[in-house]
């Protein structure tokens, strides 16, 4: 009964979200905390079941298919399921206090997040374009709703904007899939792959493939599909920004590398390479330059996310396993660091205060030395500085580029990433370099109030794990060595 245990995580997530939904209806407002506890316990159960599945999977094994070849699993995919669900656990830990203080501590937040996570897990394990499409919709729709969770004007605006743009690109995706289906007569990854290898590929099919790529680029918020990103990031409440900035990216990058590897690998030619290089360099330019002048950290991170996405895409231009491994590694680390940074913002935003301006960080390092130190490590890791784990992610991508003789692209990419130093340094500057904050009393009183607020230990522990991982794995990268094979897709 291997199949059953292999499908157990998905089944558990689905039943957990249904259970929380029902539980939340019948429980009185006073005991809403129980929904949180059940969610976390359920997530731990899901993580355990995913870990249990490693027993039946071996790193050298071929994929196991089920449901009429529409879903697949192998060791690497299982590993990414583990990553997505443990990051989800982390996000819930960080955001519990936030949503409690903002008075929407309802089951909806948990249910929608869990459903979104189910969508991501379906996406990464799909081996059929129909499943891929369903998964993408499944993880997007709950997020559209979550963005409008707070029902303020800015949230609703962001939600509607996100929904409309998302719907357009989902239409593009569906249209591309229909073209692929029309040309090849099937939507199964393996069948399409053998179709490409054996038969003449018509222009119809190629257009379909490009449209699929466009939809994926939209999910990765690459230029020129990036216009929505800053507004949505800023409009959404911090927990939701944290969710939509991290986990969907992991799922999208993983499925992108799987689609390139398992379906379009024969289609990949110099034109594709030039297209990808063009898009990633444009993203690096617009993302990094756009972030320079932002004062709102959410907007800043939105632009920096565009830049990071450009860097991730560089892993795909070489069409090599090493490059894709690098991209997968990079996106996971990026998500881990972004969760830490958003986590700090979520920890200190209370009631009517949004802790999301750079000026809010003034004096943070002095008031909270430990948290400040952890955030410092996380920021340097995001920059990709040596002796933090972010460096290895950057190194892997640059190495894959140089190994493929794309030296000029590598030079342009690293020089543009120097710009990214500047805006991360602005946060560090606010944390440490601003002297007695009395010069500007408005901020000070505000900050004083913020920093007096108590932080809860699970969030502090979570941030510490984040920071110590970033530094510890950077100093002792031997451990990376053994897990790198799990990123090979």
């Amino acid at each position, binding site marked *: 009964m291997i199949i059953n245990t292999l499908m157990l995580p998905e089944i558990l997530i689905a039943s957990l979200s249904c259970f929380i939904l029902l539980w939340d209806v019948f429980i009185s407002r006073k005991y809403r905390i129980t929904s949180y506890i059940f969610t976390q316990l359920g997530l731990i159960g899901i993580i355990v079941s995913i870990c249990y599945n490693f027993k039946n999977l071996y790193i050298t094994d071929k994929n196991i298919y089920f449901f009429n070849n529409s879903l697949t699993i192998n060791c690497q995919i299982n590993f990414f399921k583990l990553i997505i669900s443990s990051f989800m656990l982390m996000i819930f830990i960080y955001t519990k206090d936030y949503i409690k203080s903002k008075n929407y501590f309802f089951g909806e937040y948990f249910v929608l997040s869990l459903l979104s996570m189910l969508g991501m897990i379906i996406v990464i394990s799909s081996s059929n374009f129909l499943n891929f499409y369903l998964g993408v919709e499944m993880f997007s729709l709950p997020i559209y709703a979550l963005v409008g969770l707070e029902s303020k004007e800015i949230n609703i605006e962001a939600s509607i904007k996100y929904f409309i743009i998302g719907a357009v690109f989902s239409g593009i995706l569906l249209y591309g899939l229909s073209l692929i289906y029309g040309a090849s007569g099937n939507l199964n990854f393996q069948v399409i792959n053998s179709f490409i290898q054996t038969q003449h590929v018509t222009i119809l099919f190629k257009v379909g493939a490009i449209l699929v790529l466009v939809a994926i680029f939209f999910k990765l918020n690459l230029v020129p599909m990036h216009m929505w990103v800053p507004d949505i990031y800023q409009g959404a409440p911090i927990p939701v920004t944290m969710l939509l900035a991290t986990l969907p990216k992991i799922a999208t990058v993983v499925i992108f590398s799987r689609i390139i590897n398992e379906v379009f690998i024969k289609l990949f030619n110099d034109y594709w390479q030039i297209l990808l290089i063009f898009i990633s360099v444009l993203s690096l330019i617009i993302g990094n330059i756009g972030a320079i002048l932002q004062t709102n950290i959410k907007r800043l991170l939105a632009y920096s996310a565009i830049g990071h996405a450009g860097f991730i895409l560089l892993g795909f231009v070489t069409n090599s396993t090493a490059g894709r491994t690098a991209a997968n590694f990079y996106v996971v680390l990026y998500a881990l660091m972004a969760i830490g940074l958003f986590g700090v913002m979520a920890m200190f935003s209370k009631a009517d205060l949004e802790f999301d301006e750079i000026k809010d960080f003034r004096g943070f390092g002095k008031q909270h030395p430990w948290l400040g130190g952890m955030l410092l490590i996380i920021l340097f890791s995001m920059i990709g500085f040596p002796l933090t784990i972010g460096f290895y992610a950057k*190194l892997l991508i*640059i190495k894959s580029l140089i190994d493929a003789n794309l030296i000029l692209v590598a*030079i342009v990419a690293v020089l543009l990433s120097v710009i990214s*130093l500047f805006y991360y*340094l602005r946060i560090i500057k606010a944390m440490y*370099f601003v002297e007695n904050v009395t010069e500007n009393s408005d901020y000070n009183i505000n900050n004083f109030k913020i920093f007096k607020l108590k932080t809860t230990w699970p969030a502090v522990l979570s941030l510490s794990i984040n920071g110590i991982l970033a530094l510890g794995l950077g100093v002792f*990268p*031997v451990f990376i060595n053994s897990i790198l094979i799990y990123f090979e897709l």
Partner: protein
Amino acid sequence: MLTFQHILNNILSIIIWLPIVTGILVLLINKKQTGYLAVLIGGVNLFLSCLMLKNFNIVGHGWQFIEHYQWLPNLGIYYALGVDGFSILLIVLASVVNLLVLIISLQPTPNRSKYMACFLIMNGLINGVFAATNAILFYMFFESMLIPLFLIIGIWGGQQRVYATIKFFLYTCLGSMLFLIAIIYLHKTAINSGFSLEQSFVIQNFYLLTLTIKQQVYLFVALFIAFAIKIPIVPFHTWLPDAHVEAPTEGSVVLAAITLKIGAFAMIRFLLPIVTDACLLLSKFVIWGSLFTIVYIGFITVAQKNLKKLIAYSSISHMGFITMGLFIAINLVQRDQDINLAILSMNGSIIQMISHGLISAALFFSIGALYKRVGSYNLEDFSGIIHSMPIFTKLFMVFCLANVALPGTIGFAGELLIILASFKVSYLLAVMASTSLILSVVYTLCMYKKVVFGELDHDGHNHSKILTDLNYKETLVLGGSAILILLLGIWPAPMLNILNNSTLDFIRAIS
């Protein structure tokens, strides 16, 4: 059982990680008394590096005290350490300067323990730069050692510290990025020419690669920009005066004495032996560029009104001699086949690195001591301190004379050797380099005159009466550096003995 041999086998790791771990501990404990722990560890580190110096085999060739562990073997990155004659001297220099810095910073500074922790961590990382034999490991230390310095200038610096520190950080990182690309490219070439993955990032294997002249020129540009920013050579120098003026005294000391040396050291490790042909091709530019740096910055220095800026510019000017010496050496080896003179020039550069490290550290310490008393770096605010600070005046005299390369001080040895070697390359160069020494006499002695002599009541500035002389900590630090400067100036033979074989190895690598 932990025996002496165990310590000796892992001594490089100890002198790298002991300060870093202690620094993190000091940060976590965050009590004022931990400052003494920091000084203690600084002392232990100096002791260990002297122990290493004592056990260093001066007749041996190649790396010594080798350590080799797995780090990221999938990518060929190994935790590989080793020292040769160049790096062991620089490690000792770094340990000496760091101990002096830790002693002098035992004064009531805000957040003293954090301040000292930053210096300890930086010392460990700097030792790592000098000891790494794997290129990526080298790069990691090379780059990450900026973080403590960035924080030191940014948190404890002067008025314009944020501007200065961000400028410094961006400038140096921009150079490092090109360095990283060059390393990975060399690694790829090494793999293509048959080295195993384990050997592909070893710095010494890069020396054996055959590169076309076109490749060499590109690599030269990437590496040269990275290191020229650190040294710095005109026109990449604009970050340094800002960083120096805004940095706290101890930060300036480390910046001038050690951080700048890392650029020159990286040139010896990477630039000259790997892209030798390109270096020879472009050596004219670099030699005359260095001379231009010496003269042009010398003139700028004469015009300075700010004491700290004056010392900062003087330090850039003296660093010009180091690059000049290195490229003269390569010219002599390749073009004139004059090995002996090349050895002279190489040794001159290394000694100039050490002497500049000691002298600039001592000068910045002196300026710091003055600033603590007067509260200003402005040259106009000083006069007649000879009346109130006799001990300081005498020690300051030693440093100023060493700065103008007076015979008998260590400053003389390095510049003499380099100028001697430059005669073979071009008479004009030699004449100009030696006359440029006049400039350093002008600005140093003018400064000395203004600060030390003069009326007690100059323009109503009456600081000088209330000045107290050096306290015991400052006397210890300044006296210690004066002794070292004089001792090594009179008797530089031990340094030359240690350098001997490494210089020969180096000359062999570039010929």
